[in-house]
């Protein structure tokens, strides 16, 4: 089973093959998002006359919005359509020809991208703490927790994505479905507004979905806002959702392989 190491190495080579994209994503996108979020929240804090809102100061809010864009990329790993696009154009056939499980292959490539964005997140987090905060052992511990939870969340998101993307065996174009699923994950995950700003009853309801554990939980872990018990519970819930979606996507493939025609462009 050494092949997975070569898959990781190949994916890293692919990522590094596009240097411009790497730097634009890392520096450009992150800086712009932080600038917009900080300006917006500064205005909100000023208008409200408060220094703390729902447990966030302007400093922690900035950190939150530093983590969100890169953390979201880490969560969503490989690009949207990583499987459905291959089913559509026929390159998916290769996974049926090679003596391996395409579920394993795709999960590994997905997590390789996540780990890569994790590295970006770590650099950005350390940079932020050096410039605006403090960098003690505690920050490194929080960073490790955050990265660990983002990786587990990414694995869960990968299983959810595999399930959705396999639908393209029947419906050629599922782009809108994928966009909708991503929006739900981001909105109810706390990527746009921290979940503590949501009404109480809504917060209770969305706790029954996987969404808050995908983004909000890892961010809170990275910001040192979680107790050990909350982390253990969050971990178990994430793994539980992974098992459910992994089972569902395998069931879907068992049906789908009879409908799969192997056609492409």
């Amino acid at each position, binding site marked *: 089973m050494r*092949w997975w190491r*070569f898959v990781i190495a*190949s994916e890293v080579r692919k990522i590094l093959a596009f240097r411009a994209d790497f730097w634009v994503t890392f520096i450009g996108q992150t800086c712009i998002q932080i600038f917009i979020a900080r300006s917006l929240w500064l205005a909100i804090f000023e208008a409200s006359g408060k220094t703390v809102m729902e447990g966030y100061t302007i400093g922690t809010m900035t950190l939150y919005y530093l983590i969100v864009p890169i953390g979201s990329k880490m969560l969503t790993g490989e690009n949207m359509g990583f499987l459905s696009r291959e089913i559509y154009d026929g390159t998916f*056939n290769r996974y*049926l*020809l090679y003596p391996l499980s395409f579920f394993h292959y795709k999960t590994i490539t997905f997590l390789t991208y996540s780990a890569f964005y994790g590295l970006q997140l770590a650099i950005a987090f350390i940079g932020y703490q050096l410039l605006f905060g403090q960098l003690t052992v505690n920050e490194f511990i929080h960073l490790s927790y955050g990265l660990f939870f983002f990786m587990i969340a990414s694995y869960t998101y990968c299983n959810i994505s595999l399930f959705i993307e396999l639908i393209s065996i029947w419906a050629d174009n599922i782009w809108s479905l994928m966009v909708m699923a991503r929006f739900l994950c981001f909105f109810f995950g706390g990527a746009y507004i921290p979940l503590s700003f949501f009404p109480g009853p809504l917060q209770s309801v969305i706790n029954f979905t996987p969404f808050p554990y995908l983004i909000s939980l890892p961010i809170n872990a990275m910001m040192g806002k979680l107790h050990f018990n909350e982390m253990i519970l969050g971990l178990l819930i994430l793994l539980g959702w992974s098992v459910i979606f992994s089972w569902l996507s395998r069931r879907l493939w068992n049906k789908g*392989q009879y409908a*799969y025609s192997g056609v492409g462009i």
Partner: protein
Amino acid sequence: MLEVKNLTKSFTTFRKEPGLKGSLKALFRREKVIKNALKSVSFKIDQGEIVGLIGANGAGKTTLVKILAGIVHPSSGEATVLGFKPWERDNEYRRQMSLIMGQKAQVWWDLPALDSFLLLKEIYQIEDSLYKNNIEFLADTLMIKDQLKTQVRKLSLGERMKIELMAALLHRPKVIFLDEPTIGLDISAQKAVREFMRNYQSEFKPITILTSHYMEDIKELCPRIMIIKEGQFVYDGALSKVQKMMGDEKRLTVTTKEKTFKLNVPRSELGEKTSELFTSNEILDLNIHDPSIEDIIESIMNYGIKTS
């Protein structure tokens, strides 16, 4: 040994009327169409044999190859290749089989070929020494050594096809499915691929099924051919016999002021037919020759085999 019994495959597709009206209508209701791509096909191929699979577009060639490669499930019927049911996708079977599709890339475009080969080495669990020997042998015979470190997407079509061939044969498969391996290649690249396949076949003796629209591929590589028409075999036998099947016919290529057309005429009626042509048309040119294999196969694909 490859054995197929009564293999059938039907696809469900949807038909849409052309134009905006048709598109709007299709939003609510689509016409379902069942296409029978294969209709009870049966045949056997022995180890070391190379068979040409010929048919018009949409005749069912690629569907048959995809089923035997394990990509697609059949609707009914049986097939065993090296003792395995292909669509069960046993890893042991997949380690001994290869599919090369001329129109679809299977190696990774953003990586140099050697990186893809290293990955395939691990996927197929190829031993170091065998891997090294195979890379050298394949790169030398395909004359592609200098391109192995270039990103695949930056190579020419012919070079990419050679890389595909290398990738597919790296694990020295016992069964090879070649689907249009020379499509889009220039004449010298076609020749190189054919030459390579001939040498590979004689050295390693795999079961090979070759589909191609280029008759040169078939003539040079396949002693046996199977002709498929609308999902059914209309001929399965030696290529040499095909020519004899129409040995009593001559092909006339007639050029008049208006057009050029071709006719198959029995030898016994040749005199009568040519004089008839000269009296009823203003003939500019008349060429009488034996039908080529291409002519015969085209005739079989269009009209079937004459029983008389």
